[in-house]
């Protein structure tokens, strides 16, 4: 049975697209047929992060408004089997997302894919509503700082009142916390919120904690989802999160200080 999962946050710049790309790729690596849809009409980035920007001919908006078939717009990833991307338009705006159009596309994708990942734009306007409306589950991407936590709280309220499931009185959207840019050193110095602080306020189960890691930016610049970088801690953490999404029990990593060896200590001193 297919699942529609929205990756959302309220606040911008917290890592929604990076997370959608990484989790989608990790699910596909586990053998699940997965598609990632870019809902950020007019500010499209998913194709860049996925490294397929030079293969876009038709997009999500063409499918909704211009009678283009879904298969003409879907881009199959060249590195990972089972993974497709539905890019969005850079020239249109969020008004191009009609309720019926989005519904039709989602229903068609449900027939073909196991996981439909909706990469939401920031904010709580039309684009964000459209991205979360059909969700069965939601991954709320949050940074360990107060404004991001507050915006996540707001989005959780919208999920529980404005989603299709809420409107139809079905079982509520299952929500997950994905804490990104978690810098353990800064957390320990009290400059960032601890995981527990965030959990106390948001009161939803944690799907994963992604450590602050230079490999994320590097992967973005290369157009490669960070889970394909075997050496990246963030990539490992995203793989763990995808496993938990599939129901595996995986212990949280990178949330407690590692015991450092002398060499590591010296290296950090000189860094």
């Amino acid at each position: 049975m297919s699942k529609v999962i929205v990756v959302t946050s309220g606040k911008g710049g917290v890592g929604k697209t990076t997370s959608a790309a990484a989790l989608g790729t990790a699910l596909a690596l586990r053998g699940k047929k997965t598609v990632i849809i870019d809902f950020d009409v007019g500010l499209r980035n998913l194709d860049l992060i996925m490294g397929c920007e030079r293969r876009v001919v038709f997009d999500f908006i063409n499918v909704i408004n211009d009678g283009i078939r879904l298969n003409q717009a879907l881009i199959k990833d060249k590195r990972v089997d089972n993974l497709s991307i539905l890019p969005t338009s850079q020239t249109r705006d969020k008004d191009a997302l009609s309720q019926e159009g989005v519904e039709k596309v989602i229903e068609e994708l449900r027939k073909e894919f196991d996981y439909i990942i909706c990469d939401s734009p920031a904010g709580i306007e039309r684009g964000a509503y459209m991205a979360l409306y059909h969700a069965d589950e939601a991954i709320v991407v949050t940074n360990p700082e107060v404004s991001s936590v507050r915006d996540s709280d707001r989005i959780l309220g919208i999920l529980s009142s404005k989603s299709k499931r809420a409107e139809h009185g079905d079982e509520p959207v299952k929500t997950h916390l994905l804490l990104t840019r978690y810098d353990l050193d800064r957390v320990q110095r009290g400059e960032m919120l601890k995981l527990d602080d965030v959990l106390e306020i948001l009161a939803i189960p944690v799907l994963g904690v992604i450590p602050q890691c230079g490999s994320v930016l590097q992967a973005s610049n290369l157009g490669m989802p960070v889970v394909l970088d075997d050496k990246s801690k963030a990539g490992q953490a995203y793989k763990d999160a995808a496993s938990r999404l599939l129901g595996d029990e995986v212990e949280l990593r990178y949330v407690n200080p590692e015991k450092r060896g002398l060499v590591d200590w010296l290296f950090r001193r000189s860094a």
Partner: protein
Amino acid sequence: MKLSAAEEASKTGGGLPFQIRGSLQTLLSLKLLRPDDPAFFTALLEKVAHAPDFFRNAPIVLDGAAVKAKSPDCLAQIVERLKEHRLVPVGLQNGSAEWNEAAVALGLAIFGAGGASTAEPAAVGRSGSAAKAASALKPAGKVIREPVRGGQQVVAADGDLVVMAPVSAGAEVAAAGHIHVYAPLRGRAFAGMNGDETAMIFCEQLHAELLSIAGIHQVSEEIDTRLLGKRVRATLAGEGLKLEPLP
């Protein structure tokens, strides 16, 4: 020992010799259908005779919805005769500009477009008891089991509000009666929103942005820091809120 007025004022903490507060009253409204009917007052007095205590000195809002196209010439006489029969006309609602002007000249207040109250005059008879029966079946108050997130509002328009999950910063909970939050209260809480001064707020963990009872409020900054995170009860005491830890 007698205190002077000024000392009295400083004792109660207020600088002004009065206090202005919003309050919500239920008023009778008298909808004028055929005010020039010669039997108007005979019929009205018959109604009044059924419950003389209820009507004695009762404030009455005149409703001009049905007659505003006509001339308001009869208004002065109606006001006069109502007073004679110990009814107190206090204002006019749903009048035209002409009717409003006539009302002001007679010392009446003008009420904004009455929502629910416009339906009330008809409710004296059979439909009145039907409405009462319906409200008896409806449970007073509300119980919320899901978190109230920032930006959300939950209102128990009559009765108490019980919230069994956290109320986030930026969320608002309001009730005509008491508010109970069996989890952290981080948002705003308005108990006794219709003016009930005996309403109280109870919470499991106090981190509220604002507490208000019957329109008297206290913001987070004014809350004794020793009470933060504690189980607390808030009550209205004179001019301000009294917060005390729960056992």
